[in-house]
């Protein structure tokens, strides 16, 4: 190991310690809890009860998982549809105001997600601000529908799509687009054959950054959802707070992390392959 390597290695210490204390150790506790049994005072008693895991495969939970994945996929699709053009405009036409526009994208995130979701509930309720402004006889029911949940998720995670796509577009050499046009590509075919493939890794990063938190989210379904919008996050939250079944909640958490980890690995492999191809 060279001196420079050792020096660089020290840079890992603060982050490594942070992850160890606030991620690795709590995660070990979660794993230990997941094999426990509920205690008389609402907590858990450690033990060896692997049935917490087998219970998670009860078919009654299939619709919950399917719903979560469905909402998350819809959220990714909408974030892409809304976020890509925004990122495109800022990166290519933002000019001097580029940084201001990016700051505006990030600004809502200074407010806690929970509070913003509550604000949505106030806006969209039957006698809320939006229905008041529309002034219809029969208010439109926005809240407590799957659409409200997906809307809340899109609003909550949109910036996670815009920022990586923006970074990819910003990195892209504008000469590539000119080259596409010089080769008689129309605007659309230049976008499709030049811009999109060049920024695809950014899109993929955005997809992962939106999908992973969305699939495990419980706030949106809790505050904007109805009786039929129960997601995995709600199921887990329920085990800890309603049902006093921390061990089962912990087992679900571990399984959920494993499920998300698979997607993460697929993404990392794809990103690594893209990086290899780029340098090859």
């Amino acid at each position: 190991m060279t001196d420079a390597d050792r020096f660089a290695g020290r840079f890992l210490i603060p982050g490594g310690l942070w992850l160890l204390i606030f991620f690795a150790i709590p995660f070990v506790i979660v794993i230990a809890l997941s094999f426990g049994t509920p205690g008389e005072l609402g907590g858990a008693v450690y033990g060896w009860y692997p049935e917490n895991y087998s219970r998670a495969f009860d078919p009654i939970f299939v619709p919950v998982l399917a719903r979560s994945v469905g909402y998350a996929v819809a959220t990714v699709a909408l974030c892409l549809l809304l976020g890509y053009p925004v990122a495109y405009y800022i990166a290519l036409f933002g000019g001097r105001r580029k940084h201001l526009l990016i700051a505006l994208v990030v600004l809502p995130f200074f407010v806690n997600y929970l509070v913003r979701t509550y604000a949505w509930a106030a806006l969209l309720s039957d006698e809320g601000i939006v229905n008041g402004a529309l002034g219809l006889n029969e208010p439109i029911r926005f809240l407590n529908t799957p659409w409200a949940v997906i809307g809340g998720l899109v609003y909550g995670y949109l910036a996670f799509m815009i920022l990586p796509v923006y970074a990819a577009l910003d990195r892209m050499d504008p000469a590539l687009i000119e080259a596409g046009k010089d080769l008689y590509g129309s605007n659309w075919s230049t976008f499709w054959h030049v811009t999109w493939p060049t920024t695809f890794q950014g899109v993929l990063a955005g997809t992962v950054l939106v999908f992973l938190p969305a699939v495990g989210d419980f706030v949106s379904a809790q505050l904007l959802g109805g009786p039929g919008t129960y997601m995995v996050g709600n199921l887990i939250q329920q085990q800890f707070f309603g049902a006093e079944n921390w061990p089962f909640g912990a087992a679900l958490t571990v399984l959920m992390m494993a499920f998300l980890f698979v997607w993460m690995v697929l993404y990392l492999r794809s990103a690594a392959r893209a990086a290899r191809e780029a340098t090859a």
Partner: protein
Amino acid sequence: MTRNLFDEPMRRRELLQGGAGLALALGLAGCGVGEEGATSDKKQTERVVKAEPDGDLVYFNWSQYMEPKLIKAFEKRYGVKVRESNFDSMQGMMAKLRSGNRYDVIFPSSEWVDRLRKANQLLRIDPEQVPNASTVYDYFAKPWYDPQADHTIPYALYATGIIYRKDKVEMTGSWNDIGLDTARGRAYLLDDYQEVLGAGNLVNGAELNETDEAAVAKAKQWALDLKPTLRGFSTEDVTNMVNGNAWVHHGWNGDVVNIRNQVKRPENYSFVKCSEGIPLGTDCFAIPANAEHPGTALTFINFILDPENASKNIEYMGYPMPYEGPDATFAALVKDDPEIDVTIEDLENGQQFANLGAAGRRTWDRAWTEIKAA
């Protein structure tokens, strides 16, 4: 236009379950030690503590569940500080207690009193130290959760029923009114497994706390049949009624008082105790076994029980307190709609939520999870 949600601080039972996620993340690290060490020495909890201030009061309650002016008055009179913190669910309260936080006065529901008392987690309260407790209803001389009435003093009562819009629906007074056609898509069940399955049991003619598998399956079916007509499961009955999303809401009597304080036409908001049975609950004063200032806690309890103070408190929090004298304050508060009140007769005819026991809780929890997941 409705009031903005942020204008009104959260009331007792409007739990912000979202926020609980953060509390959980923080709690997990602290609660990693499990429950084995939780039982404290019985002898230690039996010692007699005198009602003499012995330091600042570490106070742990639902938010907005006690008149802040009374707390200020207590500080002034006894020259101590009240260090207040809040929980947003019984489970949240327990997570803090389990992780070793020390409080002087807590407010568990009767079910949790039973569980805490059996685990020797509550200090004995010598009745002689709280002379104002003489006004407590005789009904609480031997409550099921505290047979000697020497570990708790009742703080407030709540009855579960249906909160409804008089101008929108015609009620029959049954639990099945939650599924009324006129309230389709504007009806809520409480997001609370004991309340929903308990109501289901009552509809089916079973005991409120029945844990028999077949009975619980029937109660579950009752909720599943209602589900298509519902708009949601929620404990935020005040918010849902005030913002117009709900016309019919499974909810708590005291919340009607809060709703009426927030709407333009309070006369349209009413409450019905259902004919198949009234679930009742009691929140209590209790002193944890590891309290550092139990003397101040006893002084505080006696201070709040002072009839004049209790009356002021009732006006603020909107729930009845079971004390002779101050109970008239609540009756006056709801004189146009006495159904909101909880009387001694209600206590005698109603059914209290009990401690289901580990196996019973498991059965209820599974049924509830199936209701929610479906």
